[in-house]
């Protein structure tokens, strides 16, 4: 499944509908569906907020590939921003010492099997693999 969404936080409602359609088509469990929802939201909002130069829609592709859920999100005409360079947050720190930011990517890392980033011809592409669980038929 593939669709383009306006680079706006308000697009999250339509994105949730799109992810629901994908999850239902594969009969993903609630746990796996939630992981796809969360990873898509975190990466999409990161691109909207942090990618410099982007004016086009953000492309989202979801598919089942080689026993995994493959999630790809592409932002065109933007500067490089490799999310793998973002340091891990320490969630064991006391609340008073925690700084804002980084939690979204931390959650993405917790729920993903593999995260790849590439930047070519001005296009930023993040590819995430998720190990899925399916509802019993």
């Amino acid at each position, binding site marked *: 499944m593939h669709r383009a969404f306006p680079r706006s936080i308000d697009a999250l409602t339509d994105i949730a509908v799109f992810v629901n359609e994908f999850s239902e088509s594969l009969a993903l469990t609630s746990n796996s569906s939630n992981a796809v929802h969360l990873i898509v*939201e975190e990466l999409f909002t990161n691109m909207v907020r942090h990618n410099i130069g982007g004016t086009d829609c953000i492309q989202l592709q979801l598919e089942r590939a080689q026993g995994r859920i493959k999630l790809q999100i592409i932002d065109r005409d933007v500067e490089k921003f490799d999310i793998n360079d973002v340091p891990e947050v320490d969630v064991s720190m006391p*609340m008073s010492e925690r700084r804002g930011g980084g939690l979204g990517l931390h*959650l993405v890392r917790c729920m993903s099997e593999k995260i790849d980033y590439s930047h070519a011809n001005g296009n930023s592409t993040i590819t995430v693999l998720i190990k899925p669980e399916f509802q019993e038929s």
Partner: protein
Amino acid sequence: MFDILIEENTARFSGRLDASQVEKAREVLDGVNRSVEFDFADLDYISSAGIGVIVITFKRLSDAGNSLKLKNLNPNIRNVFRYAGLDKVIVIE
């Protein structure tokens, strides 16, 4: 559709608390100034943006000597709080 209904000392959350709903959540929660329970029985989903507004409210209430308890979390939301390390910070029933 996301909503928060305040009933006495309980705030009942429903729907999806994603980044597009954070301002709505913050407007409601900024009015809470006493010890309170957040009932997530009808909350389907939360992202880091939603977690952020819960943490801000928790810190504000704690600094004022009030408490916050979360209850009726579905397994997915419970996992998100666990991954965020907040299950050891905020009381979760």
